[in-house]
């Protein structure tokens, strides 16, 4: 595994694809940071949503940031490639 790449996930706690992404990372022993956007409120929610939009051009989940790479949606093959696993 490539060192120093800690994925950052923008997720919804209710979303099956987001849950599958977290499960996949756990199964591969990869530590990650995440924010469940649906659990935020008010201004914080708006701020994180505009962050997501500026990263991928849209509001879609999961949005996964690995270093300089951005993956929108749970794609096992893209994740493996970006993580070098």
């Amino acid at each position: 595994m490539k060192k120093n790449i800690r994925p950052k996930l923008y997720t919804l706690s209710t979303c099956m694809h987001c849950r599958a992404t977290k499960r996949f990372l756990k199964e591969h022993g990869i530590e990650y940071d995440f924010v469940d956007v649906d659990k935020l409120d008010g201004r914080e929610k708006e701020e994180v949503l505009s962050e997501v939009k500026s990263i991928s051009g849209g509001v879609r989940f999961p949005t996964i940031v690995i270093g300089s790479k951005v993956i929108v949606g749970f794609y096992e093959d893209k994740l493996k490639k970006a993580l070098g696993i």
Partner: protein
Amino acid sequence: MRTISDMFAEMKKIADEEGYQFNPDSIQLNDILDGLWENEHRYGYPSCPCRIAKGVLADDMDMICPCNYRDADVEEYGCCLCVLYVSDDWATRKHDPIPERRPQEYYEKGYPAILEQKGAGGGDMVEVYRCTVCGYLCGREEPPDLCPICRAKKERFEKFDKIY
């Protein structure tokens, strides 16, 4: 508040009547139902578990399950965005995530009021289709696979020409 199994039983009754199929993968299905129920609990309506809701009914109206985008997505991609509903041939299809059909501006402004929508009238109006069997009318891009009223097939629909 109904339980998850009450919710699914109600959904299944309608889906069976209308010829819709649920995701056959029980782990995925349970995850999706769990998310839907969570949204129903939080917002008072089962908003799509894979889309961020505003928590205001009028703004989220188009993404209450079954969402306005289900039929077109099942037809084009074999499943809806959250993969709750799937096509007959889903098992043989590739299961990559599907694109988002809901216009991105709705996430900012919410679902537009009826008079701002395409189909509200004027030159930009969507097609209206008429079931030749029972007379059911619907305004959308394509007629449904099955008439929700009399179960007639898509071929039995005709364009209902507008008179100007």
